[in-house]
């Protein structure tokens, strides 16, 4: 049965909202609440599709980076005055690393600052992982605007074919074992048949797509104009980058103009493709609510002072999808052996 799931773009808006909020240093408590909120939403709304594992992986990765951050921050710190909590033994280092001293006194201020920075990065990772775990990438690829349709199709083909190749690899491994190959099977004996198989597929696929009309409506005139706008966009952004690095005034303006040109270029290029979508993913009230809460979240953290009310509001906004997003549907895939 087709049960609705939240549009992948809405999930990404939510994830980005959390990421941006975390980046504005809203306070340690807020960061922790953001993480907890993200986890709550993920575990409540995730499906059993392969990409749902992204969150668990994100937690692991996030913890690793947190620990590394703490280790570096504590053992290699630039000394600042403060309350010394404990002192690490000093380890001498080889000459070419001159000037670096591992160890020394660890202050509570140092710990606090490092922990906060580490926590911020951790939250950022978690936010992205949460969005990856919840947003259906295949639906997302199909929902891409016409201008990115081709990129999407290549990826759709890939994601559809990956399980096939994983099975092929297993099948070839089995065939090799039946030929008497023991233990470590040679790379070439597996890679070559797989590659030949994939190349034959690619040839057949190309012919099939051509025969089914793929590329029927592609016109090149609107595209050329769109390309020029995109080129100017990227040139302006490059200027913005140089200005920023050199700390010269005007970087912000350059970036702003660059983004406007980018959007303009997208719109122009989009007009030149004429593709329709079968049963497009719907964008209903729930999606609007999620996007709205995400925007509110960002505004809150940009313009409000840190206070207990702000923190609470952040938490509630972060977990809002719990209340509005539909539950993920289970995909039916009965296997006929």
């Amino acid at each position, binding site marked *: 049965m087709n049960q609705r799931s939240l549009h992948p773009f809405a999930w990404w808006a939510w994830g980005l909202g959390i990421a941006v909020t975390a980046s504005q240093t809203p306070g340690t408590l807020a960061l922790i609440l953001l993480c907890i909120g993200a986890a709550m939403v993920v575990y409540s709304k995730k499906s059993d599709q392969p990409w749902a594992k992204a969150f668990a992986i994100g937690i692991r990765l996030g913890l690793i980076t947190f620990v590394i951050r703490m280790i570096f921050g504590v053992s290699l710190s630039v000394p600042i005055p403060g309350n010394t909590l404990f002192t690490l033994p000093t380890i001498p280092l080889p000459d070419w690393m001159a000037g670096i001293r591992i160890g020394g006194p660890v202050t509570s201020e140092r710990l606090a600052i490092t922990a906060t920075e580490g926590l911020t990065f951790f939250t950022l990772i978690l936010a992205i992982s949460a969005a990856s775990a919840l947003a259906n990438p295949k639906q997302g690829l199909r929902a891409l605007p016409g201008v990115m349709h081709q990129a999407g199709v290549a990826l759709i083909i890939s994601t*559809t074919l990956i399980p096939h190749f994983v099975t092929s690899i297993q099948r070839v491994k089995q065939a090799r074992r039946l030929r008497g190959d023991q233990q470590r099977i040679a790379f070439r004996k597996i890679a070559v*048949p797989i590659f030949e198989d994939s190349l034959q597929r690619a040839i057949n696929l190309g012919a099939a797509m051509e025969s089914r*009309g793929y590329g029927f409506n592609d016109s090149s005139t609107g595209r050329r104009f769109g390309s020029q706008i995109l080129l100017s966009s990227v040139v302006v952004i490059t200027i913005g980058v140089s200005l920023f690095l050199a700390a010269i005034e005007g970087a912000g303006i350059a970036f702003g103009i660059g983004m406007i040109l980018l959007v303009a270029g997208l719109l122009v290029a989009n007009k030149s493709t004429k593709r329709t979508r079968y049963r497009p993913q719907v964008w209903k009230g729930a999606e609007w609510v999620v996007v709205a809460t995400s925007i509110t979240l960002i505004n809150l953290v940009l313009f409000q002072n840190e206070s207990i009310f702000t923190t609470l509001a952040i938490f509630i906004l972060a977990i809002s999808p719990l209340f509005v997003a539909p539950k993920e549907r289970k995909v039916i895939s009965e296997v006929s052996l």
Partner: protein
Amino acid sequence: MISFNQVSLIYPQAQRTIFNELTFSVPEGELLLIMGQTGSGKSSLLKLINGLVPHHTGGILSGEITVAGRSTRMHRPRELVDLIGIVGQSPADGFVTDTVEEEIAFGMESLGIPSEVMRKRVEETLDLLGLAQLRNRSLSTLSGGEAQRVAIAAVLTMHPKVLLLDEPTSALDPIAAEEVLSILARLVHDLGLTIIIAEHRLERVLQFVDRIIHVLGDGQVRLGLPEEIMAQSSSAPPVVLLGKDQDWNPLPLTIRDARRLAQPLRDKLANLSPPIRKTPSKKTVPLILEIKKLVVEYEKKVALRGIDLEVCEGEVVAIMGRNGAGKSSLLGSTVGITPIKSGQVLLNGAPAAGLNGKALISLVGFVPQEATDLLYGESVLQECTFADRDSQVDPGTTYKILSQLLPDITQSAHPRDLSEGQRLCLVLAIVLAASPKLLILDEPTRGLDYSAKLRLIKILRAMADEGRSVILATHDVELVAEVATRVIFLAEGEKIADGSTLEILTSSPAFAPQISKILAPGKWLTFSEITSALEQS
């Protein structure tokens, strides 16, 4: 509808002319068959019609091909989509999306057809091809026949007037093949489509087609009614061979036609019996394979429920049954790759799962369904050298075996450029280099044309004569009729029949070979049996 005018085709890489000044036309609403040996140009002829040749796959073309007035020279295949639809040899290779419904809609998305129209067409097509209950299924879980129907559906949504299919039934079991062919016939008779199929499983297709084009391979073709073409063709299904031999007039193409003419023959054969197939007796000949109460389970399903099987040296055993009956699981446990829940599988007395390396390959030679899984060289000679090394035998052994199987093989040919039949022989040679006592083949006749099948039959008979055992998992009834001494039927994981080929095949109406259907209630399996029996009398 379709007309060819002085069409000649050459591929730049090849030396020969594929077609030389071809001129013919196909009227609307015809079901046309293209037949010919592998490599003769059937696929090319098909692809000429929708323009894939030369626009997509290259080739130098002269002459004019028009479909409903539109020239394929002026238009790329994608522009002819509303007129011509093509389904290639491996339809699953052409799938782009995840589910049946999305796949059917994909082509329309590229054309910018509005959403409501797409919805309507998808629903119509699902009904037309009987796919409605499969609409949400993941494409990777479809059977061969279902995938074939989905590919046809995906093309029909564009409402083409011509449908081209390249070997639609060669990978399908007989029942799925029937389904697909009846759908095609219905499309022709009810919707007025013009359908052209390239096929070499003639026995399945002959009764449905209006005319045949025989691609002769020297640039020429012969076009005519099925009776005419079959009368002149050397490769033909058993019913036609029998008809020609017995001088039946008109030449029968179907079982029914043949039965009406077969009474005199049945009378002649009434007191004769077919030559007995040498079946080694279990009491005198050692067992090569012993299976006792084998149970195989996967997470959700029981694949085999308590199978018992004994095979002795020199037997040729065919394992038949529907897809999903458990054939692959049985084969897999025989060689130790499928984990066993309970029961015993003994190869030459030792448990199969424990065998490895040289011990394994000198006992069992396994030819997988995808024979190309075993090929990793860049030339035939290199494959043989690799095989010698892998099998730990003297250099040159594999090549010697191969030259016996295929006397005119080119050493430098790339393995992937060989025809299906040649590749099968290559893989057989590779597997036989280690002199295994048991040869196992999983669906060997997929994609083989008649001459390659004959070659395989000869090889398998020679194996049995040498005292090797052969186990075949196959749908191909004619192959089984020719070569097997024993037939085993599996259904839902259980063995429901086990006996001599003659008994089993003649007692099952669905799985009987053509000859036995024609001569029932007499018990005969193959054309050669009849000829030798008549000669001896």
